[in-house]
């Protein structure tokens, strides 16, 4: 199977994602420059974190106009796996692949720290290896991760079990105290209706090796690999 890491000008977690897929998961992976349009060789795409175009407008707002994005949208529509991490999540929102928007963190400060996530649904390509309710310890690093959507969208997300991860405490407490950025309903990651596009603010690529203090992030990539294998992509 083949992964692609999309590189926008200003992406800065591209090499980290590439490293995890290649050296930790030992799968084939390529960088995809934002001006490329041909994605037919790929089975899964990663939109990495960073500050695409400096995030000088709204986060992700300019990146959505990159030539690669129309191909990403059609790739997703045809069922390809797409995971957007941090800035990648913000770009997926701007591109309309996922609903909602990002606001600045409630504290108005950039926050870099490990947080606990609760896995809300195992029935997805990204969580199929993780029992529902399990906690993952994964770092966040963002200034605009305060997820917001209208009530109707929130109801849909929840009733369709499209909230994959919520922020919580070390004992699974899903409350304001353990909401690092003010996200509505403690939302940390959501999927689309077809369940093949995930956006999440925390960085699983930063905790996929024990030397970095934990391997909880690896399970998400392992789930993707497993799902692709079962879909006959090896």
């Amino acid at each position, binding site marked *: 199977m083949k992964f692609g890491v999309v590189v926008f*000008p200003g992406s800065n977690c591209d090499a980290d994602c590439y490293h995890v897929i290649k050296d930790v998961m030992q799968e084939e992976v390529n960088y995809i420059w934002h001006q490329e349009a041909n994605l037919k060789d790929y089975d899964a795409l990663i939109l990495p974190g960073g500050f695409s175009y400096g995030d*000088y407008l709204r986060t992700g707002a300019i990146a959505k106009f990159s030539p690669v994005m129309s191909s990403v949208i059609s790739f997703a529509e045809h069922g390809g796996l797409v995971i957007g991490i941090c800035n990648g999540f913000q770009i997926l929102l701007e591109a309309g692949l996922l609903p909602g928007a990002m606001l600045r963190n409630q504290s108005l*400060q950039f926050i870099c720290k490990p947080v606990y996530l609760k896995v809300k649904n195992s029935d997805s390509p990204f969580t199929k290896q993780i029992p529902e309710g399990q906690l993952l310890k994964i770092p966040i*690093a963002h200034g605009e991760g305060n997820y917001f959507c209208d009530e109707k969208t929130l109801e849909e997300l929840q009733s369709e079990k499209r909230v994959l991860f919520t922020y919580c405490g070390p004992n699974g407490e899903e409350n304001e105290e353990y909401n690092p950025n003010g996200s509505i309903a403690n939302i940390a990651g959501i999927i689309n209706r077809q369940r093949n596009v995930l956006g999440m603010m925390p960085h699983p690529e930063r905790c996929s090796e024990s030397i970095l203090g934990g391997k909880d992030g690896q399970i998400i990539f392992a789930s993707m690999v497993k799902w692709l294998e079962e879909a006959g992509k090896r």
Partner: protein
Amino acid sequence: MKKLSYKDMGLLEEEYAQIQEIMGREPNYIELGMFAVMWSEHCGYKNSRPLLKGFPTKGSQVILGPGENAGVVDIEDGQALVFKIESHNHPSAIEPYQGAATGVGGIVRDIFTMGARPIASLNSLRFGELDDARVRQLFSGVVAGIAGYGNCLGIPTVGGEVYFNPAYKGNPLVNAMCVGLVNSNEIALAVANEAGSPIMIVGARTGRDGIHGATFASEELSASSAEKRPSVQVGDPFMEKLLIEACLELIKEDLVDGMQDLGAAGLTSSIAETASKKGRGVEVDVLRVPRREQGMSPYEVMLSESQERMLIVPRAGKEGRITEIFDKWGLDAVVIGKVTGDGIFKVCEGDKVVGEVPVASLTDGCPVYIREGEEPPYYQECRSFDPNSLPELEAQQTLGKLLASPNIASKKWVFAQYDHQVMTNTAIVPGDGDAAVLRIKGYAKGVAMTTDCNGRLVYLDPYQGGILAVCEAARNLACVGARPLALTNCLNFGNPEKPQIYWQMQNAIKGMADAASVLNTPVVSGNVSLYNETAGGAIFPTPVVGMVGFLPDVKQRSDMAFKNEGDIIVLLGRLRSELGGSEYLYVCHGVESGAVPTADLEEEKNLIELLLILTANSIIESAHDISDGGLAVTLAESSIKGKVGFNVNINLDSARTDGILFSEAPGRAVVSLQAEKLMELQANAQKLGIKTTVLGTVLGQDMLYHVNNKQVISLKVAEADRIWGEAIECFMK
């Protein structure tokens, strides 16, 4: 723009006469401006150069010492670390966010200019005290600026220090360090080898920002300094990120002969420095320099300090490929002139020659001042002050006060705003160990880095203080298991024209040099920031040490957290009780005085060797050196980080309890280990002549301190964590 006189530009009368003599005529306005910025302290080091000669700069680990944009040390396997620290004090005092942001931008450029991939940033910061609203504004602005710029670049900010003291109230210190990784055979230099080569400028367009920034950095801050706000540059981290990627592509394809960033004194300085190394000249046409403003004069173009610009001397015939790479990244690369063989810096505006100066007169021709130092009266006064003349305070309350002192309290409020994990190499994150540790992908090895300087100690005793800054940095590296390799320094002092300030410089530098020699940590790069004074006087002399170290196996790294109940806690080094210059005297008695405890350099060296053996052989579970707050705080921090208590008893009947608990005397560290490893530890310590004392055990959820068998402190770990963890946040809410 109003015409400035040579005095307005910061030149002395005798310097102006010297310029007339070099030129054989009156310099015109452009030429005068070029001399003024190149002969400023910031660019020319005219007050500090003779003193800097005392630093040791050589060692088998050193690939490149001072003289380039940054120093380079070997880390085996054909790889090297490139690193340097630099100040951005004056801009940050006026405009904290942009001042700090562009400080990061500048030091990062120094690193990738050498062909190295920047892999980590650190920051050494000093402010007044946090009960002052203006100080809080400066502090939050500086931290936000560092975060805003560094996070966007995707370079992890992995360490540093922050101190608060009234001495820095009007003149905060913002020193930024960057560390890069390079293949030793790909190091790029700021040099123009061949006459006839074109010179290219790339990156941001040139504007009017930052003109005479280097001059501004070389004078005291005053009430009118706010008027210099136009001298503060504005940063564009996105542009810098593109520059990093594009320039490193040029290096990978071996397309450049020389590369230099544009920093202080802009085009003038980067061209002069690049040309001077091989005695070349240069001809540059200001009309070809891309601009962001209309109507700029040649003077403004040559002196602009607009950020995110690079100068490139291509290898013969490679301009085309270079332009292609910059095109890919959406950057302009423009040929603005050529290297010549005559040693003259010729500035043209189209066909018209508007300035002509010998290159060497701008660089090597900068005047040098050897001044006379004078011992200030406070020095002997403070040395003879006896801390035992003060009443002894209750230990439990004292520990609480120290843990809540912003100088000791957790710096979480700061480093949580910095992305410290991007690049996925950070193996010890800020706050968890005595130094930051990074793995090197593809290898077992790792590297460590730290910045250190206790300005109060340097003030009280510049020679000892200089020694202690180097020792603490080396000890911090050893505590995480890294062999100290080499150092960079940022020498922050007041006005060197004042004999008592010059005396501080002389002695602090001598102390650092002596310690660096014994510990085999040569000085490979650095920066000098003088004139750090306001109406309130000079700052504490603050020669910040940035040091890097090497771990053969990064898995063996050691952090400061106690690990397992039942582990033995051992003090390495002597039991000491001197309190001179301690945070305890300051926080609890309001006194900044006393004789500074001295370091025994041989003992420091052996302690470092011991710590390296203990970590490399997995003998210890944790290591934390004794510094601010003394033994009591060291134990508390290991306990807080490990979320587990301890019970210790310290026997030393010749001293007062406050001295035993809160002395910051050097040469000491606290380690924890499994009981069965104790004999191995003691045998190694004995071989190196380091004294060991078993203090107690890791245990329960309380921190229990006994001195001479009497309990003096009992504090819940969770309570200590709350006091220590929330102190700075409380000020900033």
